[in-house]
């Protein structure tokens, strides 16, 4: 009898332990949810307390710091550069300064990635503000508005006069930040100058050019001869070393190599309001033929399909390559820093190729100044007027300086009217890189509810080679051909995305096949273009045209 009882007790204990084990799976989310609801209810309590005070004053123009001690919750995706050293953005000196200047306390709801952000919406309890790029939401920002996740700012613009001034200053901005229905999505991150839109391009060993007495190549034939010289006279195994991403997405899709053949770029572009898709045009064949020639003659790295970024950077630094495609900061900056002890090593930026020497190239890597990242208000935000005033801060003079340069005296000083980053940022005593130091005091290196200032990039990429590269790369007509930030009208969205799914797979595959010669370019018209047509590329172009027309009509 005793034995039976004992084994019963043990059985009960064991099953208790197992039960606890299974419950641990849902434990964290449950407590997380409890905390969330505590936070939001606390925030809404504070907000409702102060809203009664605010409605008494009825002053629409924001005066900072705002009175009333409002507390707002804001959801954002974790930025790993920030979270390496700080719990979240509000714990940085920048975050604290932002809250102090506006008089609004912000509680951050940090999520790991875009998927986690989507789960916040599924949870039902929305925070007051969301800092996000809604391209991560199925259907984009306009669907999010329809799904009652975003509250358009239209009715609250009177509380955000500085943001309104920003919209008024540039038509592309006021149109680009609205949906096709005219809803203002939120407080946008805007790149304030064309100078900030290009930061990737061709990088070439300048010291090799000097040694060989060659000019910077401008045409495809000149580049061919230079690469050949690199191979024969400098012993470069893979004179042009790169990766599929840089080769296809940057060089071809963004038009670094396509101007000489009469194609602005292989991606979507517009010419006088008419939409084109470069990948479906016959001039694309000539660009492919050129790359194929480089590949067959051993000038293009045969491992480009399996390389990663570090491979080609290593190649150009140790002399295996003379040309890469990379970014001004992370690429060129890193190379120059790593090789600073080698007096002979030097790199320079190369302009997009042209047909005849002296021509201006049509395109280059050129981002949209409207980036698609916004801080939006949600319909459940309890104090929308204060929220709108809060969002407005980044566009005021003081806010602009805070977001771009940080705290005067600590992270920057005004030298002859030019905001100059301090030594803490440019030459950090603890060996922090510029970005790591900037993380504490500004948001210029990332995104946010403000307009990015070109003087950030002028100092971030301050080496003479970097400055020269930025000039060379942006010497193009890219602005003429660029597509604005479009929204595909909702009724065509699923048709468009299912067409583009197959089309993009086919294009990527055929790109590799044509460049490596696995498929002969003789089949370009007969097979490639015809297959694209049968996949519905014309319909996709038609839909994109509708989107562009809606945009222009806004």
């Amino acid at each position, binding site marked *: 009898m005793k034995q039976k009882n004992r*084994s*019963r007790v043990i*059985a*009960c204990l*064991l*099953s208790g332990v*197992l*039960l606890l*084990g*299974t419950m641990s*799976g*849902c434990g964290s989310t449950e407590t997380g949810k409890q905390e969330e609801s505590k936070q939001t209810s606390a925030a809404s309590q504070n907000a409702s307390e102060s809203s009664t005070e605010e409605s008494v004053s009825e002053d629409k123009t924001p005066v900072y710091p705002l009175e009333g001690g409002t507390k707002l919750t804001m959801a954002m995706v974790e930025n790993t550069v920030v979270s390496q050293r700080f719990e979240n953005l509000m714990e940085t000196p920048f975050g604290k300064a932002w809250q102090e200047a506006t008089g609004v306390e912000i509680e951050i709801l940090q999520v790991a990635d*875009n998927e986690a952000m*989507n*789960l916040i*919406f*599924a949870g*039902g309890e929305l925070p007051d503000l969301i800092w996000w790029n809604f391209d*991560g*939401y*199925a*259907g984009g920002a306009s*669907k*999010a508005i329809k*799904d*009652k*996740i975003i509250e358009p700012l239209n009715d609250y613009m009177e509380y955000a006069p500085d943001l309104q001034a920003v919209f008024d200053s540039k038509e592309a901005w006021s149109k680009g930040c609205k949906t096709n229905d005219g809803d203002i999505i939120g407080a946008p991150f805007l790149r304030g100058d064309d100078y900030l839109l290009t930061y990737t391009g061709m990088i070439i060993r300048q010291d090799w050019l000097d040694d060989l007495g060659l000019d910077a190549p401008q045409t495809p034939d000149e580049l061919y001869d230079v690469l050949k010289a690199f191979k024969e006279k400098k012993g470069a195994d893979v004179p042009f070393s790169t990766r*599929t991403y840089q080769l296809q997405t940057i060089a071809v899709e963004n038009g670094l190599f396509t101007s000489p053949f009469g194609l602005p770029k292989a991606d979507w572009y517009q010419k006088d309001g008419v939409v084109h898709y470069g990948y479906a045009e016959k001039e694309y064949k000539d660009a492919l033929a050129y790359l194929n020639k480089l590949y067959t003659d051993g000038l293009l790295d*045969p*491992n480009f*399909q*399996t390389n990663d970024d570090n491979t080609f950077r290593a190649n150009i630094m140790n002399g295996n390559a003379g040309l890469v495609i990379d970014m001004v900061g992370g690429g060129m900056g890193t190379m120059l820093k790593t090789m600073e002890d080698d007096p002979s090593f030097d790199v320079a930026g190369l302009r997009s190729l042209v047909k005849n020497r002296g021509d201006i190239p049509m395109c280059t890597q050129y981002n949209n100044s409207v980036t698609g990242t916004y801080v939006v208000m949600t319909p459940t935000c309890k104090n929308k007027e204060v929220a709108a005033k809060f969002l407005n801060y980044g566009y005021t003079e003081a806010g602009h300086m805070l977001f771009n340069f940080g705290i005067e005296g600590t992270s920057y000083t005004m030298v002859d009217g030019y905001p100059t980053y301090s030594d803490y940022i440019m030459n950090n005593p603890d060996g922090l890189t510029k970005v790591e130091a900037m993380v504490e005091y500004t948001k210029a290196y990332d995104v946010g509810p403000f307009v990015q200032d070109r003087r950030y990039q002028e100092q971030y990429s301050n080496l003479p080679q970097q400055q020269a590269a930025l000039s060379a790369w942006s010497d193009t007509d890219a602005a003429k051909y660029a597509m604005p930030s479009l929204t595909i009208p909702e009724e065509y*969205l*699923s048709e468009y*995305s*299912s067409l*583009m*799914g*197959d089309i*993009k*797979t*086919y294009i*990527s*595959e055929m*790109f*590799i*096949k044509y460049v*490596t010669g*696995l498929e002969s370019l003789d089949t370009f018209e007969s097979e490639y273009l015809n297959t694209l047509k049968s*996949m519905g590329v014309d319909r996709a172009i038609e839909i994109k045209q509708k989107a562009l027309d809606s945009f222009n009509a806004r």
Partner: protein
Amino acid sequence: MRNDKKSFGKRLGRDLKKYSGVYIMVLPVVIFYLLFCYKPMYGILIAFKDFSPAAGILGSDWVGFRYFKEFFHSYYFTRILKNTLVISLTSIIVGFPMPIIFALLLNEIKNQKFKRITQTISYMPHFISLVVVCSMIKMFTASNGFITYILSFFGGQDYSLLTRPGYFLPIYVLSGIWQEIGWGSIIYLAALSGIDQELYEAARIDGAGRWKQTLHVTLPGISGTIIIMLLLRIGNIMNVGHEKILLLYNPGIYETADVISTFVYRKGLQDYQWGYSTAVGIFNSIINFTVVMVFNKISKKVSEVSLW
């Protein structure tokens, strides 16, 4: 016999009283399955809806079989289905016997120390992270990698092996065998130790050499384990691990490397197509389940072993 006539409910009641400890022990497991495996099944509805996280599953619009149709009508449907089945079946046909053979060979080793060292070394690849393994594969098969170098003595190629569609299948299957052969042999070694030694003696007396002993004593002895492992393996026939393929493939070899899960992954990246990927997931599960059912029935008829 009187027990049979009593109702199920009454029998259950008596069982509960008599073996209450056992039932309590299994209770957490049952709850686990109900909560984490059965309850989420209602998410299948997502495949038939234009899912929006804000509206929730019930609040989203119903679209019926749209995503299934989209999937079946895709230009690449036949290709990705073919690749999925080819990669999966080849992995099973070539890869499944390997741990068994390895276990049999290990079993023959007389020197215990050598046997244990070999076993431990063979387990190690299993613990290497997939990302590291794929980086290694990419390096070794690059145009200047050592595998390419060795192969060049037989063929004369000097290009990265992962750029030719024909090489993908062997690279995928062989690297999988290398990684799992040690770990996979554990269960067979355990089964081998369960074979009655007297059977071997009897076979030796009857004049059987080592090979005949293996055929007639060892293999039948572990056949139960082999069949169960095979059934479980077949139940995953459509789930070709997309992480490994994602890490190894590139657009140039889509024609043999692009499988259902990688195609849907790319599509999902573009527009967070919850409904589409759920629909494809259901398609996979239905095929997996059908295949397991069929093989289970065959297994029942042919041998005494089956999953249920």
